[in-house]
């Protein structure tokens, strides 16, 4: 078979002598940094865009779709405000867990993690309680549906985060992965948790206060 290759104006071989070492099975001088946190952060940007889409939809509904007459869409403020406080405090306690680990205080780290998880699950319990006390259901009207969709999606994140915290708690026991010198699970769960809390604050502002 014939093939037509280009006629180069010059060949790379003619570009002058090259030096270089090779042959070592190791690859000296190459850094293999740990980019998992960077990857996670990029993922959280993506995740945040999902929420952004939901918020944009909600705000547009608000702007152009009036609530049909006879339908209810009333939110109590007390419980969600309490929940906001719970999440904010949990962000702080998670931070304490991280500092404890850096101080080599493994037990302190575990204690703070448990507190964080407990706060997270209390948040979920509060959310459940709110769901059951609301005067509207999922399909009652546009706002009811949007409310449940957004808070539900966020609640899924909290659930996932809570489970992650429990896993990290297990890994930070004596001899576990985290205490054994790989802080990645803890740092990842912490970043994720702060993200989930931050989203909640925005959500609270848009859904409850606005």
């Amino acid at each position, binding site marked *: 078979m014939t093939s037509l290759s280009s006629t180069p104006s010059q060949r790379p071989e003619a570009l002058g002598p090259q030096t270089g070492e090779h042959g070592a099975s190791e690859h000296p001088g190459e850094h293999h940094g740990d980019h998992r946190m960077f990857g996670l952060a990029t993922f959280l940007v993506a995740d945040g865009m999902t929420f952004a889409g939901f918020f944009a939809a909600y705000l547009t509904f608000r702007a152009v779709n009036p609530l049909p007459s006879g339908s209810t869409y009333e939110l109590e403020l007390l419980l969600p405000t309490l929940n906001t406080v719970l999440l904010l405090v949990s962000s702080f306690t998670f931070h304490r867990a991280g500092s404890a680990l850096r101080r080599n205080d493994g037990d302190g780290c575990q204690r703070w993690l448990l507190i964080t998880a407990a706060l997270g699950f209390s948040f979920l319990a509060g959310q459940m309680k709110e769901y059951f006390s609301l005067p509207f259901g999922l399909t009652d009207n546009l706002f009811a549906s949007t409310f449940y*969709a957004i808070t539900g999606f966020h609640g899924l994140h909290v659930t996932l985060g809570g489970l992650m915290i429990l896993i990290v708690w297990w890994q930070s026991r004596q001899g576990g992965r985290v205490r054994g010198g790989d802080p990645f699970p803890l740092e990842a769960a912490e970043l994720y948790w702060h993200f989930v809390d931050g989203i909640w604050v925005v959500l609270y502002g848009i859904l409850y206060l606005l």
Partner: protein
Amino acid sequence: MTLTLSPPSATAPPLQPQGWLRYLSFSTDHKVIGLQYLVCGFIFYLVGGALAGAIRTELLTPISDFLPRETYNEVLTLHGTVMIFLWIVPVVNGAFGNYLIPFYVGARDMAFPRLNAVAFWLIPPAGLLLISSYFIASAAQSGWTAYPPLSLTTPATGQIIWILSVLLLGGSSIFGGINFIATILKLRRPGLKLMQMPMYCWAMLGTSILVVLSTPVLAGTLVLLSFDIIAHTGFFNPSLGGNAVVYQHLFWFYSHPAVYIMVLPAFGLVSEILPVHARKPLFGYTTMVYSIMGIVFLGLIVWAHHMFTSGTPPWMRLFFTIATSFIAVPTGIKFFNWLATLWGGKIALNSAMLFSCGFILNFVFGGITGVALAQVPFDIHVHDTYFVVGHFHYIVYGGTVFVIFASIYHWYPKVTGRMLNEPLGRLHFLLTFVGFNLCFAPQHWMGLNGMPRRVAEYDPQFELINQVSSVGALLMAVSTLPFLVNVILSAFRGEPAGDNPWNALTPEWLTSSPPPVENWHGEAPLVHEPYGYGVEPGSLSLAATSGRDLWSAGDPERKP
């Protein structure tokens, strides 16, 4: 597409893993994954092509005789979805991105090899799921856009399967995007500056930013749509107080960037191919980079040009017309840069170059009709007519698919160690180019004269021109044959390619063909000037490029 043959044993590097089974495995080697994407995507291309054949057969006559109307809608929906989400996006991003990006940044693999394998292995099940919906119940019938309320009133099972499948593919795309961003920004070989990267890296960086920012919005929207279908919520259902236009906004917030997700990587790939076969440096590197980033930014704020007939308020029409027209500026810069790259070059008119030039021609035509469509007074006449079909096929097929073929001709020697047959390649190009233009150019005329898209039946006055279009489609189908024969036979019989048959300077050519696991036996080369062609000998220092023997492995005296 057997790309699994090992090269002649004399040049087979010891590290090269053997056996074709690894292409069916959960391999984490970026080159294996790249080929998995390519072959898998091509199989789906054949499926999507068969569906297109069914559409063009139906449209031979004005009445719905070949396919019942519902079936026509299913075929149309499957065709669009398969071509976009299972062929173009995975191949132009996943296949070439995975194969090339680690080479270009001087890395031995992607930043997250396992995530990479996961991203690929989401695709075959998603694709099978989608196609199976045709056999299980009936496939979705609401087009690739799945606009409500249509998508709420057509049979639910197929629509839900469609949503599931697109969600999986979107997930795959996001994982891929994260990986590309991390690889390009974090895995660069020490000493390689951003502004020294080959252009495809910039294209993939821009594309991945779009993927990460916009795909999640589509995912969230489709979840809401599935609620509307399953749980009878009314997010997008006007009869339940919902708002169908919000769906359109959210959908196009993804899907306009998605057209750049489909075309930006192709821009990058031609920017690699043209300089090599014209033996000239890529013209205007810096402007090219800024154009890409300009397109990324503008691409995110023009989505409502798809919605000029959806009751968009005047200020919105104005804004989106102006913003959209602005995209022509960075796009035009790139176009003229390519022309300037070719200008006065020692052009080798081989298959890779022919397909690249075909791309430039087709793309500029599609770009011009695009700018025309951005003008509201014009668009309200041709919206949802065949004019739009002509427009986007000129860009998606005439642009991106042409570049995919150009890239296969260009990189096949690297991947397999063997050359493709040149006469067959030219025959492929000729058939594709003629067939493509015959198929899609007349569609502009149909649209201007009022033939609506997505309908199985049409006014008899359009019969002849539709038959012309269908003949073009037949030629396109035929054109696949020489290509398939070529890639399969050449894998066994092709002339050995050597390491660098095109005498190219980008890093993937500075290693053996096919490359070893981990890409280089020695240290990764540091290429400061990936396009330093045609400079006076000696003025370009490759001294910093280590692994000199990699060069000499190719026979410098090899005659074409």
